[in-house]
Structure formats: C-alpha cells, structure tokens
C-alpha cells in the first residue's frame, strides 16, 4: 500500500470530521431551517442570506475570519479563553466549527425546502388530532421531510470531505489532529511526492463519485415511489 501512516491517519481524520460535522449540522440546521420555512418575520431574508454566504464566499475567506476571530485577539477566542477552553485554532474542534460554517447552507437549504414543501396543512391536521408541536414534528414533519434530511446529510458529508481552504487557514497541518486528506494531497504536491498525491486524490474522486451516485440514485428511487 503506497499510503503512509500519515495518509491513513488523514483519511480517518477526514471521515471523523465529516461525520461529526454532519451530525452536528443536522441538529443545528434543523431548527434554523424550520424557522426559515415558517416565519413571516422581516428577518427571514437577511438570515437566509447569511446562511447562504458560505456558498459564495471563498473558503479561504471563511478560514481567514475564523483564524482571526478564534485567535486570542478575536471575539470568539477571547470568549473561549475566558471559559478556560483556550483557543480553537490548530485543533480538531476548531476544524469542526469551521466545517459547520462551511457546510451550513448544504444542510439548511435542503431542509428548508423540504419543510416548506410540507406546508401548513399536515401540521394543522396534526394539531386538530391532539398532537402538540414536538409530537407533530416527530410524527409528521420528520417522516415527510425524510428525503430532505437524507440529501442534507449526504451533501454535508461529501462537502466536508472536500474541505480545503478553511482547514488550510486554521489547521496548522498537525498529523492526527488537523491534517485532513485535502491538505495531505497539497503537502504531497508541495514536496513532489506525486505518486502519493495520486493515490489520495484518486481515492477522493472515487469516493465522491460513489456518494453522488448514491444521492442521485436514491433520489430517483424516491421520486418513483411518490
């Protein structure tokens, strides 16, 4: 196997990062998506725009602002320091936070669309059938929004696997902690280890292709079922 220990660690780390980010994003993104789908408040548009920012901003911009704000002179860094947690740059936690920002719209938007598609009807029906808001969320909204959740999870996972710019800015290239696959490929190119770069990059292409195949295949199956 032409992959070194660092390479394997990078792969493992990347998978951990993507999984953790996806889980956290589903938890964080769901209430945001729900609010965006339901609200009539004037805040809806600005919040929607903020959520969509990571779609258009270069990842290095996100990374740069994270670097500054998570550092000891930044707002977030000072907050974490005052809580005795130190700063999050160069840590896996920092990467998770960065990834959450980076992949946020990939979770919120499919969920928001799914919730909007459900409409008010089923929820009102549920209320007239004695379901309180929590109950109707779990018994009506979740099942009906399931395709949206699956799309959100897959997109978030795949997108985080490919994350580079953000990690580059705040990672520090620490093996086992912040040295993810994309950075490792960059390292190999930098040091002219093209063979290893090929192995890792090729692997990523294959993985992404399979993920997208599953996503689209699944969607077609789901659409046929309707």
């Amino acid at each position, binding site marked *: 196997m032409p992959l070194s220990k660092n390479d394997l660690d990078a792969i493992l780390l990347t998978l951990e990062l993507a999984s953790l980010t996806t889980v956290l994003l589903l938890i964080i993104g769901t209430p945001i998506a729900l609010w965006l789908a339901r609200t009539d408040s004037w805040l809806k548009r600005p919040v929607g725009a903020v959520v969509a920012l990571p779609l258009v901003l270069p990842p290095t911009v996100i990374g740069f602002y994270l*670097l*500054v704000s*998570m*550092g*000891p*002179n*930044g707002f977030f*860094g000072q907050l974490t320091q005052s809580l005795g947690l*130190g*700063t999050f*740059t*160069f840590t896996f936690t920092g990467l998770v936070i960065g990834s959450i920002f980076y992949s946020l719209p990939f979770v919120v938007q499919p969920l928001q669309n799914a919730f909007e598609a459900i409409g008010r009807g089923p929820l009102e029906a549920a209320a007239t059938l004695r379901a309180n808001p929590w109950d109707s969320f779990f018994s009506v909204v979740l099942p009906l929004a399931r395709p949206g959740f699956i799309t959100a999870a897959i997109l978030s996972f795949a997108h985080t696997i490919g994350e580079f710019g953000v990690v*580059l*800015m*705040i990672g*520090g*290239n*620490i093996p086992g902690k912040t040295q993810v696959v994309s*950075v490792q490929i*960059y*390292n190999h*190119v*930098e*040091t*002219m280890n093209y063979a290893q770069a090929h192995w890792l990059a090729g692997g990523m292409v294959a993985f992404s292709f399979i993920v997208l195949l599953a996503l689209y295949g699944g969607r077609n199956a789901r659409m046929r079922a309707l």
Partner: protein
Amino acid sequence: MLKPLKHSLLALGLVFASGAIADEVKVAVAANFTAPMQAITPAFEKATGHKLLVSFGATGQFYAQIRNGAPYDVLLAADDTTPARLEREGAAVPGSRFTYAIGGLVLWSADASYLDGTDAALKAGQFRHLSIANPKAAPYGLAAMQVLAKQGLSETVKAKLVEGQNITQAHQFVSSGNAELGFVALSQVYKDGQLSSGSAWIVPDAMYDPIRQDAVILKQGANNPAAVALVEYLKGPEAAKVIESFGYKLP
C-alpha cells in the same frame, strides 16, 4: 556561458538604443520574498520600461505548475534545489541560475514584549503553539527544524508545533496571535533595516544551513528580453540595496 551575456548585452543595447520596446515578464516569486519584490517591481518597471506580472506562492507549488506548463518566465525560488532540479530536467534556460538572496531566519512574536532578542522564551517553553513553515516544503521550515535540533528542543516542542503551508502562512499564524511565536523569514518582519513590529530573536547563521534562494529563467522566458532584464536588475546595485534592507544577505 557567452550566450546569456550576449543576450543581456543585446537586450540592454536594445533598451538603451530604442528607448523601449516594452515587454512583459511573468515571475513566480517565493512567498518569503513578497515584500522586497513588491518594492522592486515599480523601480524595475520605471528603469526598464518593461512590465512585471508577479505571482507569489509556495516554491513546491510553482514547481508542479511549471512542470505542467504554467506560463512563467522567471522563478524566484525559496531554495536552491528547486531551480537546480528545473535546470536538470531541461525546464529552465541552462546557465541562467543564480543566487538572488540569502535568507535569514528569525524567531518572531507579534507581542512586542514576548521575546528579548535571545532564545530564552523558546527554551522556557511556556507557549502553546510554535509556528513554522512546512519543513518538507519550505526551506525556512527546514532551517527552523535544524535550529530546534541544535538547541536540543525537537522533542519538547513537537506537540506544540503548527505548520503553515508556506512561510506566509507560518507568519500569519503568529501575527494573528494564534501562535505565540514562530520561525519566519527575516524579510517578513524587517523593513528599512529594522524590526517593523513585535519582538524577535535573530537566529545566528551557524545554527542552520544557509538558505540560498536561487532564481532561474524558465524555458518559456528563454527569448524574453524582459526576463533577461529582470535577472540583470536583480543582480544590480539598486536591487541589492532593497534586498538587504529587508534582512537578506547577498552572495
């Protein structure tokens, strides 16, 4: 050996005689040489009438791009091995390689009170993060590791090391405060002959292999008079003054 000389004489002649056929030269410049290059560019353009298109980045990346057809005319590398390799592989104009600067390593902190001109703080080890450039890809990073080894600190600081992809990023980590201190290029924190901010320990030359930074004319720039002009300018007195003011030494 005579060819480049003939070329340069011819080019110089053309320039002085015709008073400018303005050519363009695309230069790939190592990240650590950013500040001096930014100072040299307007002076060069004014003196020769040629236009300079500069890209800053990591030497390793430039190598990969050049080998895959990137349209650079001249490379100012951060090391001497990359230009040599390019020459060996026939991607550069033979004989055009020369050392344009000798890099100085400095241990630097954005905090003006952190370092006292010695390596005391480094030895004390009270910091959480020490920033260096990736030693596999950047000669300044390699030099930093040499210094740490020389001081016997390699093992103790290992857990606190954070690597920037290039010397610019290594500097960024320190300047944003995320790393309390780091090994950066002297040119990044030196201006007009003195430290522009923060505090530092200028690492004695004896502690690391000299960082010879070589430049070379690439195949693409072989018949580009502006490329030749640039090389000549870099060897000249005006450039030398600028280069030294940023803390580099000259060969």
